């Protein structure tokens, strides 16, 4: 039996009560996944990422949502938000908080929407993330039974972030989950959406999430993906964005956790004035492996994209960055900038980076850059000449290196959390966490 077939066996057991349209989707996803199988490193898109740890794993499906209250409080973001919480992929009504939703916003768990709301969900789900995109989107399509359906009607400005917290539990039997997120942002809407992955230490589950975001004319969406899962967790995600005229999509992709994390981020800029900003960070250590694949399709003239990914790699970790900018024929007067900068803190860490440009229009301003190197020695000297010792100077500059991305983050609670995590991960004696706190205190005073 192939790994794909073995995975699909789990599908048969519990799907008896699916509505027929859902059953048909599952079937299509399963068939496609079986045909494709898990990707191998011979596949250019997976050249640097080996998914055997997933393919060879044995993952059950979770059936309850019990979660320790104290660790829930420790893991969640301290933020005033409309909150949906999932435990190993299953919706937890008790941990969620959707009481104060303003009019014009609808947020519901996928399980409910699939049963109650066929017309609305059925037409949109899978429109951007088809089963052909990758074996993992096909697998997700086969299994997805939970997630979040978020709809904003035209003109709605959501006051508070919509916060999706995906928790992963440690247990004797690893589980898999295939969450699905769908965001339909009507014309001139504004919202902030957070996908936060966290969990108990030692959790070794497999999460395979697919997110689709559709922005109508003039919509502005800030999308955060904060990956803080246990260093044993496996995570594959794809985020698909479709942008209408004058819409803005800002992605903040922060990677701190996970043993194996692969994220695909794809944006289609389909009408003039559409603009996408990708801000990414990966800070990895131990034997973590983080792979970010991004793609911006400039399908229409006068569209803009700006991407900045920063990686810091320690120990024996491995980072992969593959950023592609595609400019369609006749998509004139576009601007696309892409940058990936990496810092290797250890000789056994490795980074594989490939910034690509594929351009079929001539009146364009496109540039990309990738740098991997060390800290600026003049800056090290300047700090040392103020009495700061060399390791501390390097720690400060490492924090500064990620700061460029952090400065773009508009939600302070996330910026501070990431900055503290980074500061805290540098060797303890540097005590940067204390510096960060002092600076925050002074700012607030």
């Amino acid at each position: 039996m192939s790994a794909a077939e073995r995975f699909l066996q789990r599908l048969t057991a519990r799907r008896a009560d699916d509505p027929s349209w859902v059953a048909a989707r599952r079937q299509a996803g399963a068939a496609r996944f079986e045909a494709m199988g898990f990707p191998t490193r011979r596949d250019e898109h997976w050249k640097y990422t080996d998914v055997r740890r997933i393919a060879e794993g044995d993952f059950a499906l979770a059936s309850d949502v019990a979660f320790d209250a104290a660790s829930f409080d420790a893991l969640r973001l301290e933020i005033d938000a409309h909150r949906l919480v999932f435990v190993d992929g299953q919706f937890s009504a008790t941990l969620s908080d959707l009481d104060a939703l303003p009019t014009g916003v609808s947020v519901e768990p996928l399980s409910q929407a699939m049963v109650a709301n066929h017309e609305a969900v059925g037409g949109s789900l899978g429109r951007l993330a088809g089963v052909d995109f990758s074996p993992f989107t096909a697998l997700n399509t086969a299994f997805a039974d939970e997630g979040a359906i978020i709809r904003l009607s035209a003109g709605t400005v959501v006051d508070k972030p919509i916060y999706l917290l995906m928790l992963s539990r440690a247990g004797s039997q690893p589980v898999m989950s295939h969450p699905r997120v769908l965001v339909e942002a009507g014309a001139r809407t504004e919202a902030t959406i957070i996908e936060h992955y966290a969990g108990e230490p030692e959790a070794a589950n497999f999460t395979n999430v697919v997110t689709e975001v559709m922005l109508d004319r003039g919509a502005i969406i800030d999308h955060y993906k904060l990956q803080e899962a246990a260093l044993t967790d496996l995570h594959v995600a794809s985020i698909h964005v479709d942008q209408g005229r004058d819409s803005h999509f800002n992605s903040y992709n922060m990677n701190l956790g996970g043993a194996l994390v692969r994220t695909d981020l794809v944006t289609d800029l389909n009408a003039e004035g559409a603009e996408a900003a990708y801000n990414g960070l990966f800070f990895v250590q131990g034997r973590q492996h983080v792979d970010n694949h991004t793609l911006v399709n400039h399908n229409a003239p006068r569209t803009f994209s700006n991407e900045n990914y920063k990686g810091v790699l320690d120990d024996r970790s491995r980072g992969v960055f593959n950023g592609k900018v595609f400019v369609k024929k006749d998509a004139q007067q576009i601007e696309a900038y892409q940058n990936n900068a990496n810092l290797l803190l250890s000789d056994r860490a490795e980074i594989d980076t490939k910034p690509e440009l594929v351009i079929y229009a001539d009146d364009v301003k496109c540039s990309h850059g990738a740098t991997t190197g060390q800290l600026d020695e003049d800056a090290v000297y300047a700090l040392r000449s103020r009495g700061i010792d060399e390791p501390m100077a390097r720690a400060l500059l490492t924090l500064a290196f990620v700061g460029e991305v952090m400065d773009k983050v508009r939600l302070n609670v996330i910026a501070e959390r990431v900055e503290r995590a980074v500061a805290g991960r540098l060797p303890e004696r540097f005590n940067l966490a204390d510096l960060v706190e002092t600076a925050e205190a002074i700012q607030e005073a």
Partner: protein
Amino acid sequence: MASEEMEQLVRREYKQGFVTDIESDTVPPGLDESTIAFISQKKGEPEWMLEWRLEAYYQWLKMTTPSWAHLEYPPIDYQAISYFSAPKKPEDRPQSLDEVDPKLLETYEKLGIPLHERAALAGVAVDAVFDSVSVTTTFKEKLHEAGVIFCSISEAIREYPELVRQYLGTVVPQADNYFAALNSAVFTDGSFVYVPEGVKCPMELSTYFRINAANTGQFERTLIVCDKRAQVSYLEGCTAPQRDENQLHAAVVELVALEDAYIKYSTVQNWYPGDENGKGGIYNFVTKRGDCRGDRSRISWTQVETGSAITWKYPSCMLRGKESVGEFYSVAVTNGRQQADTGTKMIHIGENTRSTIVAKGIAAGRSDQAYRGLVKIGPRAKGARNYTQCDSLLIGDQCGAHTFPYQEIGNSTATVEHEATTSKIADDQLFYCRARGIDEEDAVSMIVNGFCKDVFQELPMEFAVEAEALLNVTLEGSVG
């Protein structure tokens, strides 16, 4: 394969009859062991060479054509190609310039090729078109004095078998890739250069002067070895478009630089790109690789690629020696329906190795081109540095320019920088030139030449001048 078995094989093939054909100048189309044995026999090669070719052939049989490049072309029928044909007899060649394609002559005119050289380039059967005998003679004497060996690869296999055997295939192994394997099995022509220890080659070596074969071989094999502290500058090709009936070219070039040696390899490639619809052009699938084997050695590739319907070419450097240096300077110009997928690989293995990549791509008409590069820093390459700059210029809205730089970095003390831009010729630049009375086409070529300056200045002097002229010819008709 044991040599006994080899002998048997060769004998068996003889039985099948090609031995009676040995006097013929051509083999029928198709490729099998007997074709290879025929070639080897014809060239008077020692047995180890045939064995080597056959090893390559068996590997090739197991391989498939690479499909990762950003290129589109119909499948090649390798059994439809004739793998050996001696140079044409004078009576089969055009008897005078009147019989030559006027378009070709027009290009020579524009490039300023001296009249007496035009005939030679066009393959006209006129003896002593220019005084090649005296040129080559003085040339050879000078090299001989310096101890430099410069001859065809076939001659080298016969005359210097030990040297060839020591280095052939050590940079590009027989089974390196599909086209290299094919080349290893059937190569029939190419150059061999050996510069002994401490010698600086007294002149620039050029295939242009190695007049012994007017036709460029379809499967060229070039091997250049620079011993310790030796230096050589080698020029491949010439700037005039060559008449050539071979559709497929699969050359292999191997460079070996020992301690403190320096090899500079410059190419101007201007083969027939095909007509406006891309019909009939050359497919150019080349494997070029330099091995900086010794400490502080240096290999520099400079290329100007304007010809061929399809170019698939990645001159590379293996930086093994400590503090060795690899360089790649490239201008690729495509127009019409041309496709080019070119770039380089810099493999940093030794400590403190350095590499520089400057690639300039100009796409016009309906052409498509890609820069594809790999910078790999091995775990032991402490302090390695790479700087890559690759810029594309698009002329017109029917063409495409793409950049695929791979970086694999496994050492924390390495510094790797990559910058790339894609743009068009700015309207205000054009306006500025035209407001000074320069017509649009001249303005474009001025601006494009400026864009390529970083690379042109790496070319040997006379090449640089010709390269500029060539660029203008290639871009003709791309504006307006």
